[in-house]
């Protein structure tokens, strides 16, 4: 039950790059992907900046082989999942018990919201192919089918912590000897549904977000997908380059405070982080870097920060929110940030928390604002918290 689970490959697509190499380059050079809305057709176009993936659906379709009329959520997912599998170097997935576990928050909503324009006016109108993949699970299946994976296919949706939970589940399926290889992570494309939802909550920043800043105003929404290829020790032993990073800890806890707001003391965040440490057998002082949930909302950053203070005081690890680059990619964020955490370990880098002007007064620590290279990192903690009080933390370790 406690055998190591290795990270054999990573794949990512986000506003800062269409693959791992491009994303790493942007992270190391401080290039954020946030900007004016160009693809999403919304009345809030000129007011709310977003972090869009630069490729059109047609471009994603020609790269992945999926038809361009399919949900952008599936197109993004397939692009990142294909890269993760390629990168893993596993030649024959079919030789193993292989699963695909994905996460998303609103499935094929990008198509459904177009369908609804006609459907509302006349219930006999609207193209059915626009709603055929509305279900979250349907988006996952489009990708699983394209990848040829059918042994185990699953979808998780716990709002913004979704894909941290899918990675965590993947590791448990391996440890329970149900699967040998799992491609796990998540995806979300920008939709008017989500943009307007967050807009009604008044937590969207009209400027570029400033997580962990005293004067932070909210978050910028983003889109993308991120996956890791998890393998058992048995699979790792057959690989030419034995993977050097393991998922050493994980925990899912619930804040049980409010449907959307975090408790002021960050109970859920604290329980998730401390639970992940316990699972990995590590002490707080062993953590070298925290990839923060760090959305930039008043509520999240003080709750997360307070929980970090309670757990790590007086010695703090390096910390930053890469949402300053990618925006908040919701159901994809745990997957994308898992890939970034692995990159930090592989390359010995701490990514900067961009645009910080005034550190938060109520917190005793500072986030990292400049790229740090040549750092010896052994353990990285990645936080993902969401609506419904869902809080999950993952720990990646170098062996």
């Amino acid at each position, binding site marked *: 039950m406690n055998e190591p689970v290795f990270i054999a490959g990573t794949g990512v697509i986000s506003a800062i790059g269409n693959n791992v190499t491009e994303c790493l380059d942007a992270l190391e050079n401080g290039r954020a992907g946030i900007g004016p809305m160009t693809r999403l057709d919304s009345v809030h176009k000129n007011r709310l900046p977003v972090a869009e993936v630069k490729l059109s659906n047609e471009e994603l379709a020609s790269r992945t082989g999926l038809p361009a009329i399919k949900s952008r959520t599936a197109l993004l997912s397939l692009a990142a999942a294909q890269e993760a599998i390629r990168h893993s170097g596993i030649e024959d997935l079919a030789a193993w018990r292989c699963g695909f576990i994905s996460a998303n928050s609103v499935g094929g909503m990008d198509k459904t919201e177009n369908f609804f324009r006609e459907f509302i006016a006349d219930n006999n109108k609207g193209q059915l192919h626009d709603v055929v993949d509305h279900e979250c699970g349907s988006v996952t299946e489009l990708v699983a089918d394209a990848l040829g994976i*059918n042994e185990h296919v699953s979808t998780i949706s716990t709002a913004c912590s979704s894909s941290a939970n899918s990675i965590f589940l993947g590791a448990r399926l391996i440890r329970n000897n149900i699967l040998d290889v799992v491609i796990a992570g998540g995806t979300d494309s920008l939709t008017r549904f989500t943009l307007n939802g967050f807009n009604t909550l008044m937590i969207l920043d009209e400027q570029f977000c400033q997580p962990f800043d005293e004067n932070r105003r909210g978050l910028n929404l983003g889109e993308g997908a991120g996956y890791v290829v998890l393998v058992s020790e048995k699979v790792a032993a057959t690989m030419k380059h034995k993977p050097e990073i393991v998922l050493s800890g994980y925990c899912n806890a619930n804040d049980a405070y409010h449907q*959307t707001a975090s408790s002021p003391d960050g109970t859920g965040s604290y329980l998730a982080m401390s639970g992940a440490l316990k699972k990995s057998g590590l002490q707080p002082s062993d953590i070298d870097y925290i990839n923060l949930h760090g959305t930039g909302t008043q509520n999240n950053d003080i709750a997360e920060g307070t929980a970090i203070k309670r757990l790590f005081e007086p010695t703090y690890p390096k910390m930053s929110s890469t949402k300053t680059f990618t925006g908040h990619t919701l159901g994809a964020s745990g997957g994308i940030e898992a890939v970034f955490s692995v990159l930090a370990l592989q390359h010995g880098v701490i990514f900067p928390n961009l645009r910080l002007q005034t550190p938060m007064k109520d917190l005793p620590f500072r986030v990292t604002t400049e790229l740090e290279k040549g750092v010896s990192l052994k353990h990285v903690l990645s936080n993902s918290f969401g609506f419904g009080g869902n809080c999950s933390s993952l720990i990646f370790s170098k062996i």
Partner: protein
Amino acid sequence: MYIRATGNISPQKTFGHSALAEAPVAYTGNRLACIEPDYKEFIDPKLIRRMSRIIRMGVAAAMECLKEADIKMPDAITTGTAYGCLEDTNLFLGRMVEFNEELLTPTAFIQSTHNTIGAQIGLMLQCNNYNNAYVHRAFSFENALLDAVMLLREKEAAHVLVGAIDEIVNPSFTILNRFGIYKPGDVSNLELYKANTKGTIAGEGASFFALTAEPSGNDYAKLEGLHTFYKPAGLAATEKQISGFLQRHAVSMQDIDLVITGRNGDAAHDEPYAQLTQSLFGQTQQLNFKHLCGEYPTASAFGFWLAARILKTGNIPELLQASAAKPVKRVLLYNSYKGSHHSLSLLAAC
């Protein structure tokens, strides 16, 4: 693993732990709606008003289950829903389109996320423990159940609250109907399997279970095995999956007293069941359940409840209008959905 308690809101009188009705509730038409209880006993009236129907149903079924289990704080909560909170989703989406992204309020959006029911249960119980939501079509319930089974095996939990919830609302019914999923006209649910025509009837439900690692001496049933398979190549592949599952759990069809099947009245969908009756299931009594709850992606949770209920007494409730050929000690639940999602659960009397 043991099923200690259940809570089930369905189109039948299944809620509450009194004796089941003698006859099934008859419906005419292609849509079965849940019979909702008086929620006041389970939920604070102030909260009820704010909750949409699916949240109320899910929370009430969960509370009823925990009450019967005498568990105040479950070690984990896992839920499955394929469609999620459709009423709130439709409300927010409809207004957004109608008012061109203006004049929107957050309530419907907040409650539209797929983890809302698990989250609301956690919130009501002040439960900080593990909480996860599965949304994979007709595997949603099975995936939530598998998570619970693993948590018990890992000794991360001693008891887990597992549930499945799906609702049907007007716009979604209209859209699904346009796909030709449901039988047209005045269908009787009691005649569902006789028509031999295309289409099924729509249903919904909220079914919760308390799954525990240790027996209590008063459990419904023991869960011996769980398996899902996706898009089998054909009948031979399905048979291989079923035989393989039985073999892994060291049982043969002779050891099974009852097969509960996911027939839904659609001629093409039900054809493989007829073929299995010629082969694997030939010597075993079979029972259908979707005339009681209708077809929906997490309907297998109703079947799971039925299996547990039968195993508790060893008899088939009169509601099913069938009698057991012998005392029922072991049940195989085999559900399929749209030919692509298949699940098997093996349950035994305690």
